[in-house]
């Protein structure tokens, strides 16, 4: 084992190579990788995950991925131009997010990290809402129950316990098994798997047989730390020790991500308990716009992963099989352009919230100290009104 971080990069690379992507595997077995579409865009079969999606659905997945990549690109440039405080890019993780999110039922509940822009898109969150948060004009944004999509979580790992508790609530509501059964899915990263909370959520979900799917996007990096800083065994194999199934899926294969998530959610809804899905993917960009990955990882690693681009392979497949032609791709590109400018415009015209809003929603009922502070602050603001014309 290498201890030094720079050296770790190469060790991690060798590890990827030994996983032999493309080899169909049995879930739970070492080295297995569920894949339905190769990086070259060849359709393969997997005995555990038969999938027969109509062409329109596959085109839909392509469209989703392309559009969220555009949102991401726009957000990065808005940040560069000073319009956003920070942005956490999903570049490279489109298939993992779109594939898994499109496999959910409308009433399933989602608990995201801060990078799940693709999942947010599938849950009907307006991309401008996401930007509000990163521009810093809103504390949170959307209504979690309305979209069945929790708030972005930035204290690493805590959402796994939220999801577990939510799933236990579903159980107690009697919404497991039968029509209208529900389940929860929680997204987290490879780095998060080292947190106590995450391991505790595995224990709880397991002993309570909670209807929750643990969707780990192993993008190989936790800021500057390579995977080997978090684990010496493939992450999905950890599930076994907690008493539930784990599997590794090609996280850059939208079809495979769709198929494994669909099955795991169905199992959870039917009362078969949790599943751990490790989506093997790659963070193609910086951790966030404030990070500079050249300090800690090799450019060659990125080059290798570019060959496995999640969008390119679907495009190749659609073209080769004649399920989409130039008009379709042109249409989606035009739609992306439109979406990009809409998002840009929305971001630029967001207004700052009024200062007194800081006192809203601290408690459900009025609190004497907060109320007094509010009053004092209002008077303080008024003291400027004549002089500097600062409003509330």
């Amino acid at each position, binding site marked *: 084992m290498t201890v030094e*971080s720079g050296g770790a990069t190469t060790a991690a690379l060798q590890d990827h190579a030994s996983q032999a992507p493309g080899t169909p595997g049995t879930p739970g077995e070492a080295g297995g990788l569920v894949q339905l579409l190769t990086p070259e865009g060849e359709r393969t079969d997997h005995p555990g995950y038969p999938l027969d999606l109509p062409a329109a659905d596959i085109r839909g997945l392509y469209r989703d991925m392309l559009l969220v990549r555009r949102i991401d690109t726009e957000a990065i440039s808005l940040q560069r131009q000073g319009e956003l405080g920070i942005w956490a890019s999903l570049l490279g993780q489109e298939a993992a997010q779109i594939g898994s999110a499109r496999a959910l039922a409308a009433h399933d509940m989602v608990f995201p990290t801060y990078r799940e822009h693709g999942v947010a898109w599938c849950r009907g969150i307006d991309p401008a809402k996401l930007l509000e948060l990163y521009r810093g004009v809103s504390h949170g944004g959307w209504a979690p129950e309305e979209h069945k999509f929790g708030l972005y979580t930035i204290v690493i790992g805590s959402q796994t316990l939220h999801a577990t508790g939510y799933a236990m609530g579903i159980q107690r509501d009697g919404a497991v098994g039968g029509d209208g059964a529900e389940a929860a899915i929680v997204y987290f990263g490879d780095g998060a798997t080292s947190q106590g909370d995450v391991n505790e959520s595995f224990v709880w979900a397991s002993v309570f047989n909670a209807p929750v799917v643990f969707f780990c996007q192993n993008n190989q990096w936790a800021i500057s730390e390579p995977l080997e800083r978090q684990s010496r065994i493939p992450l999905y194999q950890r599930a076994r020790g907690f008493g539930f199934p784990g599997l590794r899926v090609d996280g850059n294969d939208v079809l495979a991500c769709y198929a494994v998530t669909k099955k795991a959610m169905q199992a959870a809804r039917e009362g078969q308990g949790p599943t751990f899905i490790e989506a093997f993917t790659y963070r193609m960009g910086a951790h966030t716009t404030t*990070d500079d990955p050249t300090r800690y990882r090799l450019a060659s690693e990125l080059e290798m992963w570019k060959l496995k681009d999640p969008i390119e392979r679907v495009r190749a497949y659609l073209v080769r099989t004649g399920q989409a032609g130039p008009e379709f791709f042109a249409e989606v590109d035009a739609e992306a352009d439109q979406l990009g400018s809409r998002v840009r415009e929305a971001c630029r015209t967001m207004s700052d919230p009024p*200062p007194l809003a800081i006192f809203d929603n601290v408690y459900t009922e009025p609190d004497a100290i907060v109320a007094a502070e509010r009053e004092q602050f209002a008077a303080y603001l008024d003291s400027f009104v004549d002089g500097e014309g600062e409003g509330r």
Partner: protein
Amino acid sequence: MADLITYREAVAEGIAREMRRDPAVVCLGEDIGAAGGVFKTAAGLFAEFGPERVWDTPISEQAILGAAMGAAMTGMRPVAEIMFSDFFACCWDYLANEIPKVRYMTGGQVTVPLVVRTANGGGLGFGAQHSQAVENWALAIPGLKIAAPATPADVVGMMAAAIRSDDPVVFFEHKGLFASKGAPAPEGHVVPLGQAAVAREGSDITLVALAATVPLAMAAAEQVAADGISAEVIDLRSLIPLDMATVLGSIARTSRLVIVEENPYQGGWGGTVASIVADDGFESLDAPVQRVTAACVPLPFADVLEQAVIPTTDKVVAAIRRLTSY
């Protein structure tokens, strides 16, 4: 004059000096290796001291502090980094129950000479879970020492004192000060914990500040000087031990006190200072003690809102004017 250095550089410099001096000093934390820390406060340490003494750890705050405690029991002097002080909440058992109590509960047989460093405080729009100033959390726990320097030279000097301390020290590095510059620390510079600094002398009113509120108080003092008000600014530098002698000595001359704190009013460290002044300095006062604090609300992301919550120069000026009109 020598070149100025940044507060950020001073953190790495302060640690490096102690690592050169004492081979028992090791660093552990997230992203402190090749990346040099997400705030670059560990820059150069990995290159100079290597993986044997600079440990990039798995992402677990509990493990970082728990392991630091264990390592300290073997005679090492671990310097553990918790990336954001808000994440103290993720490892509170070690900070509140374990580390501060070892010495006491073993009848003085076991000490844990460790430092917990952390990026603290707001003003950068990082929101409710990455911006809190939490020196007051640590203040609630007997057994911990608390350092919160305001200048690069103090960072270096107090880092030396903290690492050499046989008691555990929580070392707060203010995010809002990382880019600020100051004179470098002379060789062998040590600033003992528990010695406040008079950052500006004055005779009409005393401003007591800590970390990022020191420059705020200085700016406010400058502003009111134009109106002939002479404000003294005291940089407390550490909360445990707390140098009340300097504060009481100052108000004996000025008879007015403003405390500038970044934490919320409720449970803020200024409450302790005000309480000691009420006990031991009441006769000196000609006006009520005024605390300029954050509002008792979580910190918002929006810059305009965050400024509304936390102390600003304008708010300090308003407090000074109120007290001097008594």
